[in-house]
């Protein structure tokens, strides 16, 4: 307890005392005053976020070409960005509905494991996903081999269809989780009631499931739409050319090939307008969603016992599992032989990536933890959480362009490539971190706030004895997400890096672009192992020996 409180503290013990409390005169009691240290940290975090998103945007705006003149290719990029995102979102959600319905009403061995595995593509580095899809749908992949054997024309993975395929691969799991949550939010009693009234599965669809889908599907679609607007690595690997260039890729090309900062900045403004619109839409439509937790319930549904429905559900679940797990399996198989004969620059890139991932994780926690704790104590705390998600609307390449514009006059941006990548990755992981931490911090305050106050548990002792033990699981989870996302990120680094400062995803992309297939496959496996490994270590560390 602070020394300052000594005169008032003596009232609290039963030692004979004539002390008179001095604080009593003020209308606000001392314990109701804000915790200045925490407030300062939270404000600092807010400042960092605002500078990174809106500050870089301002830098971009000042540098952008004026008068604004858009070329034909720019319009093509805007059109492609919008329609590929719309189509990717629509397909992801449409395919997710039968899968989620199957998972909601079927109990089978491995169901829990499958739902956990559905989370894996979220942690999978995007460039690795692209490579896995190439291995299956590419020229030499199993799909084309099968089509060739049947005498059918082959499919091409490069181009718009490849971009959309990859986006569906990456977002189908998210869509499935969102829709599954919708299904499980219907109370089991409703199904029982409907059953007791003699409803068949078509009536139940109309009465219960259709209204749920109408509430859930638009939100899920908008989130995926927004994610696909800012997708970069997929388009870099599978798109390009006049038919499949997004605004994000056009920014990169203006930078890398023309070194035209003014044009890159102008494209950055366009990109921001697109994402801000999508984010505003999403903000109105999307319900808060938690990862993990609560998806293990199965509603027993006698209306769905019909054999045709069983076959339908089994097919949906099986095809989704194969579609989502096969590319990862292929990476493992193709990459394993070359893993220990990788060129030294790949190992050096791994070292740099680990360094970036750990730094980024530390930064992400430094932003998310104070924000979550502050939001839990403050009456308008949810506004803070909304602010934290501002970075969802931000495009990494716009932030990167802005930082480049700011740094360029003073020093070589490539010297700062790694710290900047870490910082931008931290900002991009922040929404997920906050989503894991903020509700937990709120619970601690609601469940133990009064008890802690009544015992005088405050300051550092409270942090050590209450906050840390109660929050270590979500902190571990958030750290794992941040580390894995940063490990696999191929975005800002592509703008800043010179040949000597590539991270592992960039190094892997370079090997792919050089058609060094064995090395790139091995590097992909290495990257996959590093991303999943980092997540596992942090998540595990948060759980280990944590009392409940």
């Amino acid at each position, binding site marked *: *307890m602070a020394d300052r*409180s000594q005169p*008032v*503290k003596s*009232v*609290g*013990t*039963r030692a004979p005392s004539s*002390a*008179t*409390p001095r*604080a*009593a*005169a*003020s209308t606000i*009691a*001392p*314990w*109701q005053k804000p915790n200045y240290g925490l407030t300062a940290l939270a404000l600092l975090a807010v400042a960092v976020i605002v500078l990174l998103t809106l500050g870089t945007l301002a830098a971009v705006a000042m540098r952008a070409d004026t008068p604004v003149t858009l070329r034909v290719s720019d319009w093509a990029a805007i059109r492609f960005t919008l329609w590929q995102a719309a189509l990717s979102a629509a397909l992801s959600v449409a395919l997710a509905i039968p899968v989620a319905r199957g998972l909601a009403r079927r109990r089978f061995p491995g169901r829990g494991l499958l739902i956990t595995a559905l989370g894996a593509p979220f942690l999978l580095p995007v460039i690795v996903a692209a490579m896995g899809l190439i291995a299956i749908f590419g020229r030499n992949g199993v799909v084309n081999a099968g089509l060739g054997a049947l005498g059918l024309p082959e499919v091409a993975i490069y181009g718009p269809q490849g971009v959309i395929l990859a986006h569906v691969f990456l977002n189908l799991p998210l869509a499935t989780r969102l829709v599954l949550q919708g299904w499980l939010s219907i109370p089991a009693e409703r199904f029982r009631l409907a059953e007791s009234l003699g409803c068949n599965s078509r009536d139940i669809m109309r009465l219960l499931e259709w209204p749920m889908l109408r509430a859930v599907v638009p939100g899920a679609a908008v989130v995926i739409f927004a994610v696909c607007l800012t997708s970069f690595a997929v388009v870099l690997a599978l798109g390009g050319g006049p038919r499949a260039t997004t605004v994000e890729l056009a920014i990169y090309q203006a930078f890398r090939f023309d070194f035209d900062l003014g044009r890159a900045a102008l494209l950055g403004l366009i990109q921001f307008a697109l994402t801000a619109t999508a984010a505003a839409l999403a903000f109105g439509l999307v319900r808060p969603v938690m990862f993990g937790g609560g998806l293990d319930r199965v509603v027993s549904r006698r209306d769905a016992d019909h054999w045709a429905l069983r076959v339908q559900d089994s097919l949906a679940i099986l095809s989704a599992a194969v579609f989502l797990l096969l590319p990862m399996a292929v990476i493992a198989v193709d990459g394993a032989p070359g893993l220990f004969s990788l060129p030294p620059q790949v190992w050096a890139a791994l070292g740099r990536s680990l360094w970036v991932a750990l730094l980024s994780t530390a930064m992400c926690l430094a932003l998310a933890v104070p924000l979550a704790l502050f939001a839990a104590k403050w009456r308008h705390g949810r506004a803070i959480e909304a602010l934290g998600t501002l970075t969802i609307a931000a495009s990494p390449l716009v932030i990167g362009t802005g930082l480049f514009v700011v740094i360029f006059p003073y020093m070589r941006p490539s010297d700062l490539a790694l710290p900047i990548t870490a910082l931008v990755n931290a900002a991009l992981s922040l929404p997920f971190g906050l989503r894991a931490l903020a509700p937990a911090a709120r619970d601690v305050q609601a*469940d*133990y706030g*009064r*008890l802690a*106050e*009544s*015992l*005088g*548990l*405050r300051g*550092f*002792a*409270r942090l*050590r*004895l*209450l906050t840390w*033990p*109660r929050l270590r699981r979500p902190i571990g989870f958030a750290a794992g997400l941040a580390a894995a996302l940063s490990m696999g990120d191929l975005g800002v680094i592509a703008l800043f890096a010179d040949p000597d400062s590539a991270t592992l995803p960039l190094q892997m992309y370079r090997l792919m672009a050089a058609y060094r297939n064995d090395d790139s496959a091995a590097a992909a496996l290495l990257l996959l192992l590093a991303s999943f490994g980092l997540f596992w270590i942090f998540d595990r560390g948060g759980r280990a020996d*944590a*009392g*409940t």
Partner: protein
Amino acid sequence: MLELEGAVIANGEFAVDADLKIAPGTRVAVIGPSGAGKSTLLAGIAGFAPLSAGQVRWNDARIDGLAPGARPLSMVFQEGNLFPHLNVAQNVGMGLRPDLHLSQAEQLRVTAALERVGLEEMGKRRPSALSGGQQSRVALARVLLRNRPVLLLDEPFAALGPALRHEMLDLVADIAAEESLTLLMVTHDPRDARRIASQTILVAEGVAHPPRATDALLDDPPEVLRAYLGAE
């Protein structure tokens, strides 16, 4: 002497008026219809609900400006009295030092307090390994070590069965007598009040009335209390 003078305790839209005095060492029950403000009264004394007017005094010193932990009182809540991630001895030790930097002598006092409530073997266990009654005992052991003159109980035994509840009430009465504590206990059962409280505060319609002798109040209840109690 615990005094509430012209106190208006705010709890959102709702407020409780209290103008009353409790003599030191008295055991007082707080009774009244649900939603009438029993818990709000305790929250006001403990510092969890702000006063919009008036004062709370202990032995003529104002305490309504103090943080909850600095007030001359201990509180046992309806639930959530223990930190689930700390063991029993740590939970009790918080009564001595919230930062748990306990000296050898202080650790002996923790052991002694656990012995007093009959849990001498349980120090290393987590609360989840304890029964509901044992958890209440841990909270009371912590009250012993906090060594504050006033004890507030907000229906802490409501979830226990009758026999266990009586046992806990008797333990509370014993501890209050040994430590000459001033006790305020919210209850919804008039038999609890008769069992351990010589005085009873009736809280009804947003007013906490001054304490009266428990038996006299319950034998001839005013209209509002009669409606709540029904035929006893």
